[in-house]
């Protein structure tokens, strides 16, 4: 499971497997903040293009396992309406030592933010809303026509 309409469960991710060879467990959780760039945020909506999002999240996990030597790498992202304090993303990594676990965790979260087709719409206390400026994921800008 990569995308979830239901609240994310850290316990479920932690229970997925036993890891007697992994001494380091790193976790990142990204929660909804009550403000962004000076504006009061009341809630968020995340949407995703699921076919590519799930494929990329799976690929990111696999790359991280190799790149950092972290045998267990998992990342999940919430979609739908979220309230302040709700967790939008959890990443859990396990590696023999803490350095690799931290590095893998950080890298995965950055990759998901920068490359996975997920969008964040902020709803403000004043009743307006806006999509948060993001990262362009075109990989053909040299060949651009449109």
């Amino acid at each position, binding site marked *: 499971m990569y995308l979830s309409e239901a609240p994310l469960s850290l316990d479920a991710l932690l229970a997925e497997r036993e890891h007697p060879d992994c001494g380091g467990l790193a976790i990142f959780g990204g929660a909804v903040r009550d403000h962004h760039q000076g504006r009061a945020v009341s809630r968020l909506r995340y949407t995703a293009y699921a076919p590519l999002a799930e494929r990329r999240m799976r690929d990111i996990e696999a790359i991280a396992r190799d790149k950092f030597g972290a045998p267990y790498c998992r990342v999940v992202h919430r979609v739908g309406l979220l309230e302040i304090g709700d967790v939008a993303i959890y990443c859990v990594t396990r590696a023999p030592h803490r350095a690799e676990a931290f590095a893998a965790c950080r890298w995965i979260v950055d990759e998901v933010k920068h490359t996975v087709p997920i969008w*964040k719409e902020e709803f403000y206390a004043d009743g307006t809303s806006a999509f948060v400026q993001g990262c362009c994921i075109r990989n053909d800008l040299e060949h651009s026509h*449109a």
Partner: protein
Amino acid sequence: MNIRFEFFGVMQRLAGGAALEVELKRSVTIADALDELAALRPELRLELTRCAVASGDAIVLRRDGIADGSTLALLPPVAGG
């Protein structure tokens, strides 16, 4: 040929809907198809330049060809996490 465009993120707001089916007259590549879409819906033109285009679980390039009956997902800049 008939192409179904699907809109995500801010594209959905700009397009006023989740999808649009269009009969394209002269398109051979993805780039052609986006040009025809922008001609039909000028309000999408600027944001289209920032969109990646996906078919199923893969990104397709502007220079790639298109087939009748395709669905193209238009993916503006992403902001997960």
